[in-house]
């Protein structure tokens, strides 16, 4: 791993090689018991077009890390460079209820500086991409949970970021819908040249989606281990290969959790 100064010096070439580069990032918050270390010396690169899942139990600071990468918060130490401003998707759809599905996407385009006459067409294209053509005029509350997350995905894609950050985006959905959205996300990820950093506490979901699974330990969050997932990509969550790797990762995750019970 390059030192901070080296990375700074070679930033021009570095940005081409990394959709995101997280270097020795620590983060602490002021808590009731003084400063509380949430993230401890995290270093992680996401290559262009790579799909990485961050996996961890509660308290591992995975959402905190995502917020840092999104630029919503600043690290206490260390540095984060991203190739442009990343898009972010939340567990809640976070669509604006005063706008229709299409207008939500158009707002993202507008804030990115897309001229007015192109916005409508581009929004329709993005809705087609998430297979919601014809939903442009629908109000958010008229859509089902799965449809809302797909509109939220389309809105994130409208930012044309190189990196998409996803904070447990499917955790609130029922199993059938989640399964379908996994397929959908994989399809879109392969069609576009997007890098994805996906946070979850669901081991199978992590293995189902990612090229690389990064396990975080809890309190403070540290990188415990990494797995490369070589299972060919149209995967299913019930595939034996997915299940086998999930068992292995789950064992490790449980080990990490057990450590906290001993202290």
């Amino acid at each position: 791993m390059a030192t901070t100064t080296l990375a700074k010096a070679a930033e021009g070439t570095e940005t081409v090689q990394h959709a995101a580069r997280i270097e020795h990032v620590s983060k602490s918050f002021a808590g009731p018991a003084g400063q509380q270390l949430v993230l401890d010396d995290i270093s992680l690169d996401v290559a262009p077009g790579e799909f990485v899942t961050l996996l961890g139990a509660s308290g591992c600071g995975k959402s905190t890390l995502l917020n840092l990468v999104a630029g919503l918060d600043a690290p206490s130490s260390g540095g984060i460079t991203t190739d442009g401003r990343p898009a972010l998707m939340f567990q809640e759809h976070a669509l604006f209820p005063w706008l229709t599905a299409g207008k939500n996407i158009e707002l993202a385009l507008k804030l990115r500086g897309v001229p007015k006459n192109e916005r409508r067409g581009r929004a329709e294209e993005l809705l087609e991409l998430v297979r919601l053509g014809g939903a442009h005029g629908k109000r958010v509350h008229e859509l089902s949970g799965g449809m809302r997350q797909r509109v939220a995905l389309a809105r994130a894609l409208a930012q044309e970021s190189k990196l998409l950050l996803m904070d447990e985006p499917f955790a609130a959905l029922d199993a059938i819908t989640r399964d379908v959205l996994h397929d959908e996300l994989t399809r879109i990820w392969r069609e576009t040249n997007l890098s994805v950093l996906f946070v979850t506490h669901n081991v199978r979901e992590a293995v189902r989606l990612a090229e690389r699974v990064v396990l975080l330990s809890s309190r403070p969050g540290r990188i415990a281990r990494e797995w490369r997932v070589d299972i060919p990509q149209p995967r299913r969550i019930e595939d034996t290969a997915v299940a086998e790797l999930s068992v292995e990762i789950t064992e490790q995750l449980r080990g990490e959790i057990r450590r906290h019970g001993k202290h």
Partner: protein
Amino acid sequence: MASTETSAVKDGDTREAPDAKDGVRGGGDLAGLEAGLDALETVHTGRTPFRETFVRKILPPLVAIALVLAVWQALVSFKIVDDPSKLPSPGAVWGEIEDAWLQGTLLEYIWTSVSRGLFGFLLALVIGTPLGLLVSRVRFVRAAIGPILSGLQSLPSVAWVPPAVIWLGLNDQMMYAVILLGAVPSIANGLVSGVDQVPPLFLRAGRTLGATGVRGTWHIVMPAALPGYVAGLKQGWAFSWRSLMAAEIIAQHPDLGTGLGQLLENGRNSSSMSMVFLAILLILVVGIAIDLLVFSPLERWVLRSRGLLVKS
């Protein structure tokens, strides 16, 4: 249908020859599967038919009004109250309305007050909105004048009439000053509480989309705060109307014309109880009518478009 086909493809184990382009095994079915899920999970809501609205919403208040009129008439007819200077009959008040209508003064009374009230309200809107934004967005301003602003709401605006008369004299400006002092705090406070209730998630989502600073205020904070703001406007109108009536009753001057407040005071001076009743009735009806015609539809539209209007 689609699901059987999907599992058939899966059983055939296509891992070695994946439908790479589509990215998903049996990918052709994914669209169908999704369409099915969407159809199953979408709730269709329609508008309630007029008959139902009539029976549920319009009929009950009409019955209540009829009941009040019946009791009133009974009090007079059965001589329970037989002093017309205390309680005029409904017929006498109706006669007063008819007279005013035939003389062409009825609409004049109403218009004098309504035009004043609405103009004053618009002024309050123009002042209260930026004030509310300032208080909600700038921490120092909030700490400085936030408590005063909410305290002012509990001060009856009639208290402003004497100082306003001394400062500005008996004229329209004085009326507007009283309206402003009554309505501006309501509108500003409504906006402040609207902004306070904006879910932080919207602000975070807005920031990742690039809506920061003024663009964040315009595209995210203002529309997100609209329900609270509209509630503030509604209350602001009620306060405008009350303040104006207080001002009109106290400030009497020939140059001011005859508004509903003056009409009430005139009735008292000429000991005409039916005129007093007429004035009270008109004040009530105008206040309700403007709320019903302007603010309630506005509020309903805002809430319905966000799916916040729960059907009873």
